[in-house]
Each structure stands twice: as structure tokens, then as C-alpha cells.
């Protein structure tokens, strides 16, 4: 990671204006977005958008031709190019031919992508952004911190001083007055400009129509007052039919700003008369800049389904801490990382892709149904292939790939940690490792791993066998969680077997882009787990469960190892998470809860993979309630705790404040105990509470339920 990048993160997380504004916004957004979608079937709507946008991505060339033909038939000039330099040249030529001295722009990401303003200004043309936020950052000489709210990082005091320094003295930090001032100043620019530049939100091929969405009304003025209108349209904006406008226009305002509809929508299908009666010159530039290439990439084609609503930014636990500036100049957040990798260069995404903690929040809200974390992982994989893995990482994974060596090192760690250990925690690590324990204590490696202790448990032999996949954390740090699981399944008359050959699930390697390592881990585990004749393979770690159930398959697919797929699928069919399995056993009458218990308040933290990949939010809650607990839901129960596997080691400066928020929410729930289904979350949250000397108990659901269940 570049030092400059680390510095930009440091600056962002220590900017209270930025984190305050983004934090409050993300909290309000979640509620207002849900309200805007009331009465709509979001799943059906986004399926329709994804389908229509995907169709367009598969027919880009054809739709671009059709758009050109239909728009030109009505008098629009259409210019299509792959080359950003040609876009700039075309606009400059139109400006020169018509003696343009001043241009007004409404928001266009495509123009920012090709650094159009600088180019035109260098040619002596005045270019004015008219979107208020864009104008403010243009005056301040900054870049947008959010795709929809470019100046969200600035306070009214800062805006006033920018106006005072750059426009006119005497402005006070009074928002309505600042807006009025901007209106007056920009009004003159609108009236004087000879050319207006806009983007477009949709370009309809069958009618040659541009659809432009705004709230301020600036696009209406930009397309009405100047005699020349140039629209820069990325090819991903093309859609086949005019009726395709409906789903996009239904979702975009709701997802972007939680509005039912934006104040203004303009649908322009050809030149209209100017105020002096002459016909307007209307130029549409269909800009490719690698979009065709993207649409032909089997993985990244789905990124063409983006409607640029920025909802992936608004729900991201990382974005709300760091804002847009750490992402670079143009596209920000999850989708921005992907767009930067394509429209700028793969290596330009090298640092920013590491910001994704893989929590999956964005996949729940994306109206284009884009698997943003999945695509970021694919970037990581391609980057690792292109430039190789960092040396230290390579060394670590070569150990992880050798199960016996890896496990004997973990055993040795138990001895080596002794001087650092306090009870079950390591509270301080020396030297360069100190960052890792600054904000949370780490669990000590257990004296005996689960693979040893499980042998000592006397189990009911025979009837039904279930294989237990422990995962490294339970095996070596928290064997007691595994013992609880065994105890519960034994009560249902099930024998739990522990296939010795099981090893790391490969998540650390996969999430670092080291797919070959992950594939080796997958093969070893498949061999170990399919060797036993069992009804289920259960895991008490959701990340491992997702690994076994989904990631093995996807890793093999990414590497083209199709031979390995049938056995990966065979394993996948048997895999189940702890709470879903126990809920099943209770529902089937094989386990029951002790009767009439009133166990008091408890709060539950949803682990990312359990909620968003395995969709198991209800089973643990139902089990806890049936046991006799009263669930006191914490605020943002399903927000990431900041662990993210190795993420918390790589980016502790981001992991720590995410955890901090989680701890506050846990405390505010008023419950004396917080329960979760993931040993990784336990490690993070327990470590955080330990650092704060909190008395709140942190447990895995299996531990909490072990004594409440009995045989039927």
C-alpha cells in the first residue's frame, strides 16, 4: 500500500466534518430510502433493471447504431468514439467553430472521467459547473467526495469562506443565503454562456432520446439558454426501448436521494428552438472509453448495469468513514473502485480495492443487482496475477497451504505467546505488530485445539453422523465454541465427526486475490470432508460456511478448474450453518428447550456472511427467543463489526472506528450479553470490549444455547 494512500485514509478518518456528515447521512439514508420504496417490490424492480441493462450491454454496438440513426434523423449530431482525447477535441472544435467563450455545465461524470474542464480552460474557454456542489468544489479546487453529493465533506462555514475568497466578499455561513447567492451568480453565467454541456442518465436507442435527471433545475437551464447543447453519454447509458425508462426512473431517485421523483426530468429527442427562434445545435457524444471491452468481459459485464445512484456508497461502512477523496478523483466507493479499474487503469485500483471489507451491504441495495464485492475480489485476483503477491503474503500463504506445517506453527504459537498472554487475551504486541492490538485485544491461542479436545468427548455412537468443519479460529483459539456445538448435536443423538484433514477454508487467500492458494485449500477440504459418510457438514463460522458452500465453486470457476466442480458441488449440498441446523433439529422435534425459562435481555449481532450470503438472520433469533431470551435489538445490528478477516490487520485505522460504532450500539441496547454466530466477530467485538474493560459478555450462539437445549 502506498504511503500517500495511507496518509489520505488517516486524514479522512480524522476529519470530523467528513465522518460526521457522512455518518449522519448514512444513518438517515437507510430510513429514508426504505420509506421511498414503500409499496414497491424492489426485488422485482431491480431484476427488471438488471435484465434490461444487461440486454443493452450485450447489444452495445447495435444500440449505439440505432441511437445514432434515430437521433440523426431528427437533426441531432452524434459522435461516437472510444478515445477520450477525441471527445475533448470534438467539443473544442464545436466551441471554436461557434466562437464559444463561455460554457455552462450540468453534472457529468463522463466529462470528469476525461478531465474535460482542464482541457477547455487551457484553450481559453471559461467553464462553469452549475450543480451547486460541483460549483463549490470547482471554486475550492477540490474533487468530489461523493458521486451524488460532491461537497458533503464541507461545512457551511467552509463554503462561505470559499465564496468569500473566490467570488465575492461578505458571505455568511447561512445556508439559504449561500444558496441564494449561488443562484444569483450562476444565473448570469447561464444567460451569458454560448454552450451547455450535460451528461445523461439514459439514452434510448429506439427513439434517440436523452433522459436527464436533476433536482436543482440546472440541466433545464443548460439545455434551454445556450444555443449549443453537447451531451456526453457513456455507452453504458444506452437502453433499447423507451419503456426501459420506467424502471430506471422509478429506482434512480429513490436509491440516489430517497426521493419518489427528482424535481426535474428532461427527455430530449432532438433539437428544439432557441430563444431567438433559431434551431439549437444538439451534439451527442457516445463515449466508449473501454465500456465495450467491459461489456465483453464475462465477469465485469454486470458493472454495465450500474445506474450511478451511489447507494453502494451510502450503505458502505468504510465509505462513511473515509469519504470519496481517498478513492481518487472521479468515481468513488464500491462501484467507483470497479469503474476506476476500467476507465482509468487496473493498477489505479490497486490501493482502493483494499478498502472493501466484503460485508455485502451494497449487494442488498444495488438497483442494478451488481455483485460489487464479488467484482472487487476479481480485481484483487487480477491484480495479484498481474503484479504478483507481496512477498510477506506469499510466505504466509505457503505455510497456510501446508496444513501440517500451518497447524504445528499454530500449536507452537501457544507456547510463544505465553509472555504476552493475560488470561485468554493478548493485549499488547511489540514493535510493528502493535497496531493490531491497539484497539482490541487478540484471543490467545488455546492450549489444546479442538481437533485434540473433541477426541475426549464421549459421543453417542452410531445412528446419525454429522461432520464438523471448525475453521482455524474455533479449532485453535475458541475450541469451547466447537465443544458447545458437539454438546448440542449429541443431545439430538447425533455423533459429530471431525475430519482430521480439514484445513483453512481459504478465505484469507481468496480475499487477498491469491486464488491458487484458495483452490488448494478448497481441494484439501473437499477431500477431507467428503471422505466421511455424513448427513451434513456443519460449521459454526459463517465465513467458512460461505467458503464451503459457495466460494470453493467460484474459486474453481475463476481459475477454470472445471474438473473440481462436481465434488465442490457435492460438498456444497451438504453444508449448513450452525443456527440453521439447530433450528431444523428443534423444528423436527429432535431437540427442545427447557420449559418456562425467562433468561432476560440479550442482543444479537448479525455477521455479514450469515446475513447477506446465507440469509440466516432469523434462525439464531428464533432459537434465542425460544430459549427464553428477550432480544433487545441494537441499532444497525446487521452492520459489519470491522473484522473482515485479515482486513482488520491490513487496515486497522478503518477497522477500529467501525468497531467503535458497533460497541456503542451494543452498549446502547442495554443487554448484558451480545451473541453472534461468527468466531471472527467474537474476536473483534470481545477484543474491543476487553480493551474498554466492559462487563458485557460476548458469546457465540452455540455457547449461549448449549445449556438451554435438551433431548426430546
Amino acid at each position, binding site marked *: 500500500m502506498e504511503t500517500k494512500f495511507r496518509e489520505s485514509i488517516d486524514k479522512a478518518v480524522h476529519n470530523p466534518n467528513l465522518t460526521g456528515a457522512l455518518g449522519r447521512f448514512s444513518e438517515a439514508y437507510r430510513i429514508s430510502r426504505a420509506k421511498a420504496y414503500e409499496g414497491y417490490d424492489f426485488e422485482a424492480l431491480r431484476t427488471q433493471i438488471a435484465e434490461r441493462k444487461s440486454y443493452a450491454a450485450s447489444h452495445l454496438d447495435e444500440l449505439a447504431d440505432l441511437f445514432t440513426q434515430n437521433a440523426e434523423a431528427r437533426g441531432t449530431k452524434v459522435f461516437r468514439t472510444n478515445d477520450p482525447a477525441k471527445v475533448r477535441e470534438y467539443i473544442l472544435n464545436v466551441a471554436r467553430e461557434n466562437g464559444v467563450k463561455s460554457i455552462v455545465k450540468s453534472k457529468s461524470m463522463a466529462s470528469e472521467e476525461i478531465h474535460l474542464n482542464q482541457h477547455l480552460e487551457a484553450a481559453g474557454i471559461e467553464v462553469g459547473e452549475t450543480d451547486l456542489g460541483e460549483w463549490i468544489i470547482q471554486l475550492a479546487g477540490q474533487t468530489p467526495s461523493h458521486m451524488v453529493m460532491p*461537497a458533503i465533506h464541507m461545512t*457551511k462555514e467552509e463554503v462561505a469562506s470559499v465564496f468569500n475568497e473566490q467570488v465575492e466578499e461578505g458571505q455568511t455561513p447561512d445556508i439559504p443565503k449561500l444558496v441564494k447567492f*449561488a443562484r444569483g451568480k450562476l444565473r448570469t453565467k447561464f444567460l451569458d454562456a454560448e454552450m451547455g454541456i450535460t451528461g445523461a442518465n439514459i439514452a434510448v436507442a429506439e427513439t434517440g432520446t436523452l433522459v436527464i435527471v436533476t433536482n436543482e433545475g440546472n440541466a433545464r437551464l443548460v439545455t434551454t439558454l445556450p444555443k449549443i447543447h453537447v451531451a456526453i453519454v457513456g455507452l453504458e447509458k444506452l437502453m433499447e426501448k423507451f419503456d426501459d425508462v420506467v424502471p430506471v426512473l422509478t429506482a434512480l431517485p429513490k436509491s440516489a436521494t430517497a426521493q419518489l421523483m427528482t424535481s426535474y426530468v428532461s427527455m430530449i429527442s432532438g433539437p*428544439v428552438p432557441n430563444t431567438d427562434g433559431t434551431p439549437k445545435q444538439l451534439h451527442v457524444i457516445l463515449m466508449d472509453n473501454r465500456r465495450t471491452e467491459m461489456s465483453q468481459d464475462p465477469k465485469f459485464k454486470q458493472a454495465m448495469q450500474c445506474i450511478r445512484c451511489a447507494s453502494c456508497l451510502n450503505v458502505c461502512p468504510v465509505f462513511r468513514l473515509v469519504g470519496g477523496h481517498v478513492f481518487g478523483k472521479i468515481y468513488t466507493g464500491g462501484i467507483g473502485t470497479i469503474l476506476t479499474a476500467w476507465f482509468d487503469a487496473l493498477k489505479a485500483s490497486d490501493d482502493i480495492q483494499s478498502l472493501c471489507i466484503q460485508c455485502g451491504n451494497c449487494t442488498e441495495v444495488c438497483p442494478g443487482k451488481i455483485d460489487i464485492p464479488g467484482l472487487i475480489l476479481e480485481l484483487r485476483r487480477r491484480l495479484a496475477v498481474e503484479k504478483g503477491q507481496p512477498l510477506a503474503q506469499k510466505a504466509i500463504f505457503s505455510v497456510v497451504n501446508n496444513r501440517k506445517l500451518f497447524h504445528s506453527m499454530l500449536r507452537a504459537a501457544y507456547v510463544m505467546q505465553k509472555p504476552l498472554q493475560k488470561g485468554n487475551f493478548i493485549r499488547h504486541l511489540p514493535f510493528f505488530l502493535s497496531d493490531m492490538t491497539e484497539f482490541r485485544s487478540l484471543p490467545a491461542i488455546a492450549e489444546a485445539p479442538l481437533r485434540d479436545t473433541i477426541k475426549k468427548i464421549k459421543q453417542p455412537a452410531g445412528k446419525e453422523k454429522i461432520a464438523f468443519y471448525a475453521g482455524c479460529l474455533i479449532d485453535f483459539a475458541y475450541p469451547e465454541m466447537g465443544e458447545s456445538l458437539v454438546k448440542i448435536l449429541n443431545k439430538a443423538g447425533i455423533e459429530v465427526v471431525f475430519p482430521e484433514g480439514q484445513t483453512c477454508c481459504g478465505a484469507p487467500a481468496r480475499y487477498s486475490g491469491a486464488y491458487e492458494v484458495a483452490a488448494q485449500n478448497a481441494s484439501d477440504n473437499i477431500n477431507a470432508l467428503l471422505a466421511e459418510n455424513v448427513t451434513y457438514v456443519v460449521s459454526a463460522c459463517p465465513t467458512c460456511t460461505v467458503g464451503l458452500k459457495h466460494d470453493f465453486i467460484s474459486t474453481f470457476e475463476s481459475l477454470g478448474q472445471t474438473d473440481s466442480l462436481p465434488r465442490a458441488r457435492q460438498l456444497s449440498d451438504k453444508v449448513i450453518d450452525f443456527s440453521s441446523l439447530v433450528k431444523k433439529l428443534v423444528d423436527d422435534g429432535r431437540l427442545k428447550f427447557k420449559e418456562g425459562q425467562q433468561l432476560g435481555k440479550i442482543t444479537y449481532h448479525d455477521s455479514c456472511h450469515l446475513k447477506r450470503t446465507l440469509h440466516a438472520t432469523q434462525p439464531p433469533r428464533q432459537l434465542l427467543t425460544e430459549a427464553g431470551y428477550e432480544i433487545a435489538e441494537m441499532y444497525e445490528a446487521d452492520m459489519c463489526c470491522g473484522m473482515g478477516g485479515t482486513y482488520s490487520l491490513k487496515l486497522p485505522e478503518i477497522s477500529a472506528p467501525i468497531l467503535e460504532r458497533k460497541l456503542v450500539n451494543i452498549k446502547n441496547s442495554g443487554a448484558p450479553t451480545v451473541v453472534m454466530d461468527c468466531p471472527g466477530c467474537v474476536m473483534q467485538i470481545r477484543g474491543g470490549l476487553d480493551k474498554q474493560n466492559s462487563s458485557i459478555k460476548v458469546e457465540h450462539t452455540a455457547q449461549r444455547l448449549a445449556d438451554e437445549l435438551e433431548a426430546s
Partner: protein
Amino acid sequence: MNAIFDTFKLRAEAVSAEVHRFPHKSEALDFILHYLHDAGISDSPQAGAVWASCPFLDGFDQKQISSLLPGLSFDVNREASAEAKVGISQLDWAIANTGTLVQDAARVDQRLVSTLPLIHIALIRSDRLVPDLPSALKQIRPEQTNYISFITGPSRTADIERVLTIGVHGPEKLIIVFFDGVVCDEPAGVN
């Protein structure tokens, strides 16, 4: 009819528009003239009103109306619109579930009076209310016109500290006047 109107009114008011409805055109005109009078429309600078020609005006004597209210002009151009305090136009369709007005805005005067003045008065026939976006897009299509405008509430921004602020580039007030379409010959005077 009333249910769909109520939905529209609820949605439009939720985005800070004002909604009125009159059974007769004459009453709508009366309301507008009173409004202009109260808004201080006169022939002084920055105090004018511009009214884009529209079917609503059929049957009314524009000269007579102008003479009642100096400052109100039916001759819409760039300069007059930029100077005007109020712009008036008739819109073609209204979408109930979002509180949106839709207009064939190919004629530039339609856009001048609804973008430049501080206040926009939007006339709309009550029978032009449709329930939702798909039904509106069945009525007005790009094949018919080069510029379709959708207007939902006044101009707004939240670009400074996310504080909702009305009236950044377009009108800061949108007054929607429904009329039920009964023609009346007599324009009302201004008191």
C-alpha cells in the same frame, strides 16, 4: 377522480408544492389574478409576470387581463422571463403517485416561464391526472416531441451540509392549479 387527486395533492405537497383545484376555468383565473396582485406584480423591474400561451387562455381576452394587471405579459421572451417574478404555463399531464407534472416543452417559452422566474404557476386540467409513470409515458412519447419536461415540486438542493434548500436554479415556489374544464367566458376582475 377525487381519490387520485388526493393522492396527487398529498405527494405534491410532500415535496413543497402548493395544490389548488377549481371546478371552473374562471375561478382558476380569478385565483391566479388575485395571486399575482397579492404577489405585487407590476411593471416595475423584477416584478413582472410572464404567461406562456396555452389552451387555458382560449376564450379569455388577454388584452383585457393585461390591462387589469400591468406587469403581466403574454409575450414571453428570454429577457422578460429573466426579469419576471412569476411564470405561468399549462402542463399536459399529472402523475398522482409522485406528484409530478408532465409537459411537451418543445416550445422554448414553456421552459423559460418555468425555469427563470422565482414562482411558477402550473395550470393543469383535472382530467389529465394519471396514476403513475407508466401511464403517463403511454400518453406522451418522444415520437411526438423533442423535449418532454417532468416537474415535481420546486427546484431544490441539499448540497451544503445536506440541508434541504428550496429554489436553487429554478423556481422556489411551485403553485399547481387544477381546473375541471368547464369553459366560462367572463374573466374575473381584480379587486
